[in-house]
């Protein structure tokens, strides 16, 4: 018998090597059926993360509001303190003026008493004792310096509160980044839903296209003078250039 060309597929059976395309498809379907729950889990996780972002943003807003309100309270106190310091300062000026007036009167008394004191040692001793008594004159000279230091310290506490504005801008920068992440996550979530597009929340819509106009996320609180010195140098060069 002439050997016929054998088919690779025996009747009613599968090829010896199996169905390559069908096997691949089976494998693919197995993988897909394994991936679907995984994708569902990813979707759930994304929904949860996206849902919690507004809460994070609200918490940051609350931090900003709380620090602003605390700063306002501190400023109120400082302004009251400054007013009291000014009142005390005026009182000291008044005491100093009275003291100068007293010196003049004492000098006049000196002139009157001198002849009497020369002839009477007891009068002389009593008068000298009186002149040395602290109640008679003079606030300590150091009081002015202490007072200036108090005034400067009060002012410096106020100046340090600039940190509130700077951290507010930093927080606004972080909030904006968080919002961008939320929007990206929302887009990924939309791609899970077939053709179902949900509009972004109002909070997102109200954000400006150019957030740099509203805040500076790179703001930093540094007491080092180098940033101001750099700015001064640029300003000076600019002015010289323009006047040259």
């Amino acid at each position: 018998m002439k050997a016929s060309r054998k088919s690779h597929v025996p009747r009613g059976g599968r090829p010896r090597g199996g169905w390559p395309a069908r096997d691949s498809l089976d494998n693919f379907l197995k993988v897909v059926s394994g991936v679907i729950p995984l994708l569902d889990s990813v979707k759930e996780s994304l929904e949860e993360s996206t849902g919690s972002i507004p809460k994070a943003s609200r918490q940051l807003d609350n931090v900003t509001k709380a620090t602003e309100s605390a700063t306002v309270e501190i400023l109120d106190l400082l302004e009251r303190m400054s007013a009291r310091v000014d009142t005390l300062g005026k009182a000291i000026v008044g005491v100093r003026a009275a003291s100068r007036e007293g010196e003049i009167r004492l000098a006049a008394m000196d002139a009157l008493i001198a002849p009497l004191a020369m002839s009477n040692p007891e009068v002389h001793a009593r008068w000298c004792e009186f002149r040395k008594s602290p109640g008679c004159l003079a606030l300590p000279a150091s009081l002015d310096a202490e007072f200036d230091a108090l005034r400067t310290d009060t002012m410096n506490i106020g100046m340090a509160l600039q940190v509130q504005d700077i951290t507010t801008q930093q927080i606004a920068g972080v909030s904006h980044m968080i919002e961008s992440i939320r929007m990206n996550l929302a887009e990924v979530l939309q791609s899970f839903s077939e053709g179902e597009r949900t509009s972004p929340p109002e909070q997102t819509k109200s954000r400006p296209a150019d957030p740099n106009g509203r805040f500076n996320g790179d703001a930093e609180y540094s007491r080092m003078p180098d940033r101001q010195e750099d700015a001064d140098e640029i300003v000076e060069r600019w002015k010289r250039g323009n006047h040259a």
Partner: protein
Amino acid sequence: MATTKFLIVDDSLTMRRIVINTLKSIGFENVIEAADGKDAMAKLLSEGAEFLITDWNMPEMSGLDLVKWARASEQFADMPILMITTRGNKDDVIEAMKMRVNNYIVKPFTAPGLKEKIDQILKSVGAGAA
């Protein structure tokens, strides 16, 4: 007591109060304030001012846009303007100078630093310092 009328523009109430308190401590009592560029425009037109101190980053209208507007106007083209901002990059300072601000302070500022800049500006425009 110096009589120069200042307009302080900053969206931060804290910063406005700090600047105003500092101005008062160095002898400038005549001060009005605005919370952003638009508010400042309205105040300048209704109440007027002789010296503008403005922040850069603000809602509604930025300080830089306010400076552009002032320089383009006939009334405020030569008004002394000091910018006080957190933006300390070289490009930012140059951009502000291009808009013809008179001087530039990087936050956080100090009272002597503010006084020095105000005195420099008033001297350069021929007005009396504190």
